[in-house]
């Protein structure tokens, strides 16, 4: 165990020692760079949250797309509830493309109202709407408009809720939202690369004399590029951490403050919890992108010198 801790400490020491030895760090002068990369990482975090959440929702909803229609029967004076249901079942089952139809076990009014009113005692005879679950045959595509027509004609108080239709539409919307967020992620990475290219060139220009001296005493391009790489490693990590933390705080508070109501209408609309561990990737990605970009930029700049 002590060996394990010793190992960890050694690793951390080594990590802390990873800094440029020769090129002076210009951290103080680099706050705009930190800011821009932190903003990029914030945006990337949000896009990542959207991607994960939306793909979660889209998945959940498309799982329902097996095809379920709900027929709701509202109580009416002109017909008894039991008759309404029996007639509706008859009509539905006679429709081609339907696999099965079953009444959803009756819920008492009290149970339905509990979330709203709390546990209350209600008169037993309060009529509440009843539901019929209709499963479509696999591949079946019943004419829902005609079915709706027939049902509403024959059964007063019947309403067809073809929510799988709008769920499908929402699913498609979720899909394009996801694609959009992924595209945004790519653009953010591209913008970050461009920023780091600029920053690396500027840093190399500012340290021109040092680079030349290093060359003349026999440093290889790799060594010099490494000096700049290491600086951008820390810039990427720091800025990425700031951006991701700010995004996490924002997403969390949105989920907490808006989630209560949002959850009621659209279950799971808060950011999925998977987003938060995934946000840890953002600083790592930022550091990786910064290091790679700085390296390639430095090597290409150095390659043009003698």
């Amino acid at each position, binding site marked *: 165990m002590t060996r394990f801790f010793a190992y960890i400490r050694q690793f951390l020491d080594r990590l802390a020692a990873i800094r440029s*030895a*020769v090129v*002076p760090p210009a951290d103080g002068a680099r706050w705009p760079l930190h800011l821009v990369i932190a903003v990029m990482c914030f945006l990337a975090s949000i896009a990542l949250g959207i991607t994960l959440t939306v793909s979660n929702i889209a998945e959940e909803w498309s799982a329902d797309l097996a095809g379920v229609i709900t027929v709701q029967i509202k109580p009416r004076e002109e017909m008894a509830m039991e008759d309404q249901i029996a007639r509706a079942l008859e009509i539905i089952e006679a429709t081609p493309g339907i696999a099965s139809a079953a009444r959803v076990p009756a819920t008492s009014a009290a149970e339905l109202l509990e979330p709203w009113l709390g546990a209350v005692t209600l008169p037993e005879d309060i009529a509440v709407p009843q539901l019929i679950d209709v499963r479509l045959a696999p591949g079946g595509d019943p004419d829902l408009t005609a079915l709706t027509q027939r049902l509403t004609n024959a059964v007063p108080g019947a309403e067809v809720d073809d929510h799988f239709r709008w769920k499908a539409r929402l699913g498609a919307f979720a899909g394009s939202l996801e694609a959009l967020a992924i595209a945004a992620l790519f653009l953010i990475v591209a913008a970050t690369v461009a920023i780091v290219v600029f920053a690396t060139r500027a840093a190399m220009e500012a340290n021109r*004399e*040092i680079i*030349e*001296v*290093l*060359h*003349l*005493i*026999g*440093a*290889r*391009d790799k*060594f010099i590029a490494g000096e700049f790489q290491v600086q951008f490693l820390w810039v990427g990590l720091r800025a990425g951490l700031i951006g991701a933390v700010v995004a996490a705080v924002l997403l969390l508070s949105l989920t907490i403050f808006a989630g209560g109501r949002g959850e009621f209408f659209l279950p799971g609309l808060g950011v999925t919890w998977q987003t938060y561990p995934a946000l840890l990737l953002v600083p790592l990605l930022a550091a990786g992108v910064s290091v790679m970009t700085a390296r390639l930029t430095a090597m290409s700049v150095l*390659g043009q010198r*003698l």
Partner: protein
Amino acid sequence: MVRFENVGMRYGMGPEVLRDISFKLETGSISFLTGPSGAGKSSLLRLMYLAHRPSRGHITMFGEDVNVLPRAEMPPLRRRIGVVFQEFRLLDHMSALENVCLPLMVTGAPREGYLSDVRELLTWVGLGDRMNATPPTLSGGEKQRVAIARAVVAQPDLLLADEPTGNVDPELGIKLLRLFMELNRMGTTIMIATHDMALVDRAQDAMHMHIDQGQLSVVRMSEGALP
């Protein structure tokens, strides 16, 4: 070790600052390069430490044809050359000690392997108590000695010194000359550019070349060398 054949050099599109330079440095030799300011001494050294390519002619260093040497193969060659720059070119944000460590650091050698040697060298040039000072806080003479220590720390085969006594009092100048002679006795090939004729007269058996308006002439040969 070093061979120039009809070398010409210009900066950018400017006029030729060196014309038809031909000479040879034998391994283990010591030579002086004199000439008035602006004659082209620094430019000639710049060609030798591979900071500039000739605009014509041929330069051979350590048997390598510099004209066709790929970039990637320059670092190993440069590591065999120690340079005392005329303007020192120390890194201002680093201590004297770190500056002297630099040529070893860039080779990737482990720090523990050379740190005590570097300290010893700095003590030997009289900077034992100034190791942690940064160049801006050092006097001209102190900077000069740090620059010399940096040039010799990796035990180069060829040492090029551009006006190494330009910033020091005559007494220290003589001490530095003795240091160079000592290094030469240990096998380092040395070329010193200077306008200090007194220095040249003190080293009677050294080769002496004179340059004026970009043209080189050999004033005195050392034994066994050919122009």
